[in-house]
């Protein structure tokens, strides 16, 4: 394992120290318990938005803390849920008196830890609601199971509900918009290579020199199918089919799309993939109103990409366009 780190057990803390040093104008990092919080938190009279999850997906979530997006992020160990004490402390730090929304990706650990944190906060009189993101169409959904994994839609939702909170929406309204995002968004990813968790020291899985894993999870969880390498056009087309048919998206839908790199994929390929997606969308009459092309929710150095598609109503588009100032996403400010 070659990594630009010191000791595996110090990666998360030292990286957070770097984040803090680089972006002291927009964020503060609190250590033990670890959380990243807006420099001006708590913003009085504003709903607080807190997200969190395992580290290794940067810029998500710490890179999305700032005006117009998250009030705080709780980074766990690499690929490991943060703990309730982090979320509780972050929630208190951003509570501006209008309640706090927790944005949670649907992994058992994340869900339960956020639930415990919410109970602790509610016991202290803070109004807390949670929105759970589960958008990965690679996982079969059924009433009897845990549901789907939360992946790329988390990024789009963080932007949109962050803007809603900034606009002054109340907790119920912000939560409703978050749930509308969940109801209208779908994602899928494909990996060309595995990543290596620093403390594990070896790749999470092995892929042959001509193999890809279609439907990969953001922690390297197995996907739908392991198949032979295909062209960008073929890969995008089959992933798009899975996404479009799931919601389903329909001709005329206005959408926000994200072509997301897993961390080790060069930007020249991501734009090429976006070009392929544009062709698919045009063929099906799907309108691309907004888009993100880049590394937003990564899996360490994994090579691969994911597609996220959100059917966006005019309100969501307006919130999308609202100013945002974070380390990982910035416009209008």
């Amino acid at each position: 394992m070659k990594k630009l780190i010191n000791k595996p057990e110090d990666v998360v803390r030292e990286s957070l120290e770097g984040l803090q040093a680089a972006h002291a104008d927009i964020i503060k990092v609190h250590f033990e318990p670890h959380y990243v919080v807006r420099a001006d938190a708590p913003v009085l009279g504003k709903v607080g938005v807190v997200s969190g999850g395992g580290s290794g997906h940067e810029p998500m979530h710490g890179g999305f803390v700032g005006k117009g997006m998250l009030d705080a992020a709780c980074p766990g160990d690499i690929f490991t849920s943060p703990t309730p004490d982090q979320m509780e402390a972050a929630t208190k730090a951003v509570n501006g008196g209008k309640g706090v929304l927790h944005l949670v990706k649907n992994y058992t650990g994340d869900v339960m830890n956020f639930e415990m944190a919410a109970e602790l906060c509610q016991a202290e009189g803070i109004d807390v609601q949670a929105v759970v993101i589960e958008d990965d169409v690679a996982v079969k959904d059924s009433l009897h199971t845990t549901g789907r994994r939360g992946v790329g839609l988390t990024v789009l939702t963080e932007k949109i509900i962050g803007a809603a909170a900034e606009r002054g929406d109340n907790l119920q309204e912000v939560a409703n918009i978050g749930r509308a995002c969940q109801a209208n968004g779908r994602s899928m990813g494909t990996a060309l290579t595995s990543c290596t968790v620093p403390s594990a020291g070896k790749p999470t899985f092995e892929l042959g020199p001509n193999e890809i894993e279609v439907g990969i999870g953001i922690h390297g969880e197995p996907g739908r199918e392991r198949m032979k390498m295909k062209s960008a056009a073929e890969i995008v087309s089959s992933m798009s089919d899975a996404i479009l048919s799931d919601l389903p998206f329909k001709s005329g839908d206005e959408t926000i799309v994200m072509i997301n790199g897993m961390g080790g994929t060069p930007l020249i390929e991501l734009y090429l993939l976006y070009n392929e997606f544009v062709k698919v969308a045009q063929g099906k009459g799907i309108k691309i109103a907004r888009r993100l092309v880049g590394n937003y929710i990564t899996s360490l150095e994994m090579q691969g990409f994911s597609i996220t598609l959100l059917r966006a109503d005019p309100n969501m588009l307006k919130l999308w366009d609202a100013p945002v100032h974070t380390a990982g996403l910035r416009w209008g400010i």
Partner: protein
Amino acid sequence: MVTTDSVVAWLHKLDDIYTENKSYLTELDSAIGDADHGINMARGFSKVTEALEQQPPKDIGAACKTVSMTLIKTVGGASGPLYGTFFLKGSMQTVGKTELDAPGLLELFAAGVDGVVARGKAVLEDKTMVDAWLPAIEAMRAAVDKGITPMLAAGVEAAEQGMKATVALVARKGRASYLGERSKDHQDPGATSTYLMLKAASETLAR
């Protein structure tokens, strides 16, 4: 009677047991999860040892509360909140108590397991730790009149059977559920750590 000291002995024993079984549990988790269950449990209970030494508990409720807070803060993942909740609910049954008879000990375990079920919303045959916990509680309830030692023995036996029965199941809760059918033919790591927890209890609390 179970005393505060014997509860503390049980908790120290858990530190040893999870350290010994760290790679075994992690291996089980690597087959159908994310290869960290043994690491999580070992880390959590070594911190429990530290916490108990730093602030020796004055009663059983306090001991359970310390375990709960420590696990919640240091384990993370799914098992952190689950075992954390187990000890939290157990502590609420034992506030101020320095001794427990068989029904009192059963209450601790039963309240804890209720907490686990409420937290994780798993039912029998979802291939989780609940498949070890629920049969164990049932067996202990049936044996409560026989006294602490036979009660715990019955619980361990039932937990072991429940743990082994998870092999054949398809996971419907937790990380393994994303694997669907492919989760079959593997023993659930959480059910295994639960069996080990009860086994340690019978070795340290029985008298």
